[in-house]
């Protein structure tokens, strides 16, 4: 049953992303209404699967790579809907939905089941730590999507190439505002996640080595948030600077994760 829910929501996300892509390729500058309905439908199924996981395993899908990617995909899909409605950036799903499909596909491939050591991580503070971390990375991903679209739209406007991107992408000001909101929220949640993680380690007297991979990655991510936020302030070309910082920062965080994970596969576990 839950497997079917996962596959159906994955398929629907894929269809919605494809519809957006086709609409962009057609260059008519309009968001297919159907895509919005499909994303909402997929999100409902996703949430249903989330609740089913909780009911079945008596814990939230926050431990283990599969469950975390599954939850991150859901938060991102929700972020895409929020960006489309409250953020007036209805085509930002063009970038975010493929990421959602990628995350959800990876989660389904890995298996959305709790990790074997899940019981060790039971507790409200741990759940909050992971949840806030997921929200933080979702914020960074939204900033990445908005930043990428900003750079492409900026290029269209500067080079006077009024093509499909010009018509389909939101205005620069909207993308800048969306990216900044993503960074601000992401930074806040990420900082909270770090603080809770630190308190949790202190409370249980867990010893973490200075070169701990999780610690290094979390620290790098926090610095990326800071750098992107600083780059997007002040005058001059702040919009472009902020967009570049969001895009490069996101790629750096992803690359660092993959690198650490490859390293960890030889000598120990890493998320």
């Amino acid at each position, binding site marked *: 049953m839950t497997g079917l829910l996962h596959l159906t929501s994955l398929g629907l996300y894929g269809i919605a992303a494809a519809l957006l892509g086709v609409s962009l390729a057609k260059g*008519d*500058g*309009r968001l297919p209404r159907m895509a919005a309905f499909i994303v909402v439908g997929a999100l409902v199924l996703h949430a249903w699967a989330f609740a089913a996981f909780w009911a079945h395993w008596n814990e939230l899908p926050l431990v283990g790579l599969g469950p975390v990617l599954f939850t991150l995909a859901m938060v991102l899909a929700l972020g895409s809907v929020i960006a489309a409605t409250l953020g*007036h950036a209805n085509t930002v799903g063009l970038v975010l939905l493929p990421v959602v499909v990628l995350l959800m596909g990876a989660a389904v491939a890995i298996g959305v089941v709790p990790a074997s050591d899940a019981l060790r991580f039971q507790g409200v503070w741990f759940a909050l730590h992971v949840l806030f971390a997921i929200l933080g990375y979702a914020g960074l991903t939204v900033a990445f999507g908005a930043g990428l679209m900003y750079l492409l*739209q900026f290029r269209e*406007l*500067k080079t*006077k190439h*009024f093509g499909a991107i*010009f*018509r389909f992408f*939101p*205005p*620069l*000001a*909207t993308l800048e*505002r969306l990216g900044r909101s993503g960074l601000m929220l992401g930074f806040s949640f990420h900082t909270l996640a770090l603080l809770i993680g630190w308190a949790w380690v202190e409370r249980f007297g867990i010893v973490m080595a200075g070169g701990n991979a999780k610690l290094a990655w979390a620290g790098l991510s926090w610095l990326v948030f800071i750098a992107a936020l600083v780059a997007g302030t002040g*005058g*001059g*070309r702040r*919009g472009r600077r902020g967009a570049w910082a969001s895009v490069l920062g996101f790629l750096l965080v992803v690359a660092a994760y993959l690198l650490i994970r490859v390293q960890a596969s030889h000598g120990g576990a890493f998320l």
Partner: protein
Amino acid sequence: MVEHFCDGDMALAVIGLSHRTAPVAVRERFAYDRGEVPAALGRLVESGVADEAVLLSTCNRTEIYVSASDVVSGSAAALSILAEHAGETAEASARYLYQHRDRSAVEHLFRVVAGLESMAVGEPQIQGQVKDAYNLARETTSAAGAVVGATANRLFQTALAVGGRVRSETGLGVGAASIPSAAVELSRKIFGSLKGRRALILGAGEMSEVTLECLRSAGVGSCLVANRTHERARDLAGRWGGEAIEFDEFASALSSVDILISSTAAATPVLTRDLFRGSNPSGVSRPLCIIDIGMPRDVETAMAEEANVFLYNIDDLRQIVDHNLGQRRGELPRAEAIIGEGVEEFWGWYVGLAVVPTIRDLRERSEAVRQAEVEKALRRLAHLAPEDQEAIDALTRGLLNKLLHMPTVRLREAAGNGRGTSVLDTVRYLFELDGEAEHGEAEDSPDSTEKEINR
């Protein structure tokens, strides 16, 4: 009534002129101010040749829609009112005017509302203009009564619904279709909403004013106007609630505005990069959208290299307009299909009006027979209790309704599929309805007709 529909002499017509048939100088003479419309509609309806009338007057068209029992007289009266207003004879006006009747008139209105007949195909303002014209006619009362009745109500409500569908279901209204609106579209792609943005208008010519009008209606908050002749700058600023500044000050004002519209008659660029740098040594700290619609260009192309500056000239705007118009043309078949559906819907209802008198006559005749027979029977059955008598009355009423249900449905279907004439004649002959349907005050009442057809 039956013969009226039989010979195809439908009582709907539109007469008018538009940008396609008349130059602007002629259109100006035929145009009506809002305050003049009620009197014109009143005259038309009071003359007795038109039952209902709506007058649409925009900068690109003036049209009178009439519903009349004698469409020829109705059109002639409308023509004479238009000609008189323009100060011309009917004969002289005729060469600018077009007429559509019946189904063609309905289709014309639907095309107008959808923007297919507009100068810039798909422009949205016409929907509001038609709505205003319809509402004004609804508020107008002549000595002969209201100038809008069941037919015009249904016609214009359907037309507005069709216009709404065309705009929401097709891409006909997407994108700018004129140079000023392309300037707005470009600005929006940079700033999003233009609400509260500041604009600087360089040059006080007609193009500057039209673009300023577009920007103001898009939400631009305040504007500065600079012109070599300061008086003209002050006039333009006064008309649009702006502020006139000295021409020499415009470069330093650039750091405080979001949009610059430049349309001067200067032979050489008035805004060079050196001038900009001289007035704004550190450039501008926020995006500045420069729309240069001057010919020759007013802004040096090197300005595009400045950080935060987005520079566009008239060719860039034309590129956007051409693309949008091309896209809109591609949407025409879909728009026409929606219009076709709307015409079918209205026409089905309108043609159905022809069967209403027959249905009513048939029901009245049958009811009269029923009542007479029931009374006759009850006189013989006077010993029955009142409840039993009521039961007999209800039984006959139910029987009659059941018997008449299918003929009523079939008559309406026949009216819609073009077989109405012969079927109506047959029904009237079989039930001896002729001679009863031709008179009666209620029969001509639009309200009673509308209630009947909606039943």
